[in-house]
């Protein structure tokens, strides 16, 4: 029972390089989320998706793009990496319950990204 799987676990990039972070969930959840976690800042929402083919901006979306082509996958892209994007990135997913979304989010173990 894998739950939420993130790849890669670690990555070092140079400023200006691009990369894609992959999130996969095997729980058939409708909602998926990308967060970043920085010291003293808590988890902040970057983008989220309420279903296959849909995406929406969160609290800190600038510099990131996302895609949800398949229900089980949610991709986070950095087109031109900047040192300010050095962070730990977490993906999460949650089920729906009728029209309510107040079901717990389940998290992956994160991708540690350093931008030099």
């Amino acid at each position, binding site marked *: 029972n894998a739950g*939420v799987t993130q790849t890669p676990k670690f990555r070092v990039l140079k400023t200006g390089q691009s990369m894609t972070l992959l999130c996969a969930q095997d729980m058939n959840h409708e909602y998926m989320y990308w967060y970043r976690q920085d010291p*003293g800042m*808590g*988890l902040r*929402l970057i983008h989220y998706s309420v279903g296959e083919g849909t995406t929406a901006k*969160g609290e800190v979306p600038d510099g990131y793009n996302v895609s949800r082509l398949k229900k089980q996958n949610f991709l986070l892209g950095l087109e031109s990496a900047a040192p300010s994007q050095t962070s730990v990135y*977490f993906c999460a997913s949650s089920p729906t319950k009728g029209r309510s979304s107040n*079901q717990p989010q389940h998290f992956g173990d994160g991708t540690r990204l350093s931008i030099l």
Partner: protein
Amino acid sequence: EDQVTQSPEALRLQEGESSSLNCSYTVSGLRGLFWYRQDPGKGPEFLFTLYSAGEEKEKERLKATLTKKESFLHITAPKPEDSATYLCAVEGGSGTYKYIFGTGTRLKVLA
């Protein structure tokens, strides 16, 4: 503006020394308050969901309570394996499916 504040930032306890962690929140129309545990190098692990004032949930040495303004995570007779960062999050009534997280309380339980 929706906001979550956790206190203390860090807490050191002796094994068996009970204590409480606090999560104060401001949100328009609470849809749920969530407690998570996070170990170093890992993602947050779900502990509890509380939906309305007066609700309580228990799991082993942990008990979560909720009022209209705050939630407490009570830890009874903690063990070293309870050492972790405990995160609190709220989901408001705007229907945007977004959590607002606090910055967490780092708990260290000494043997």
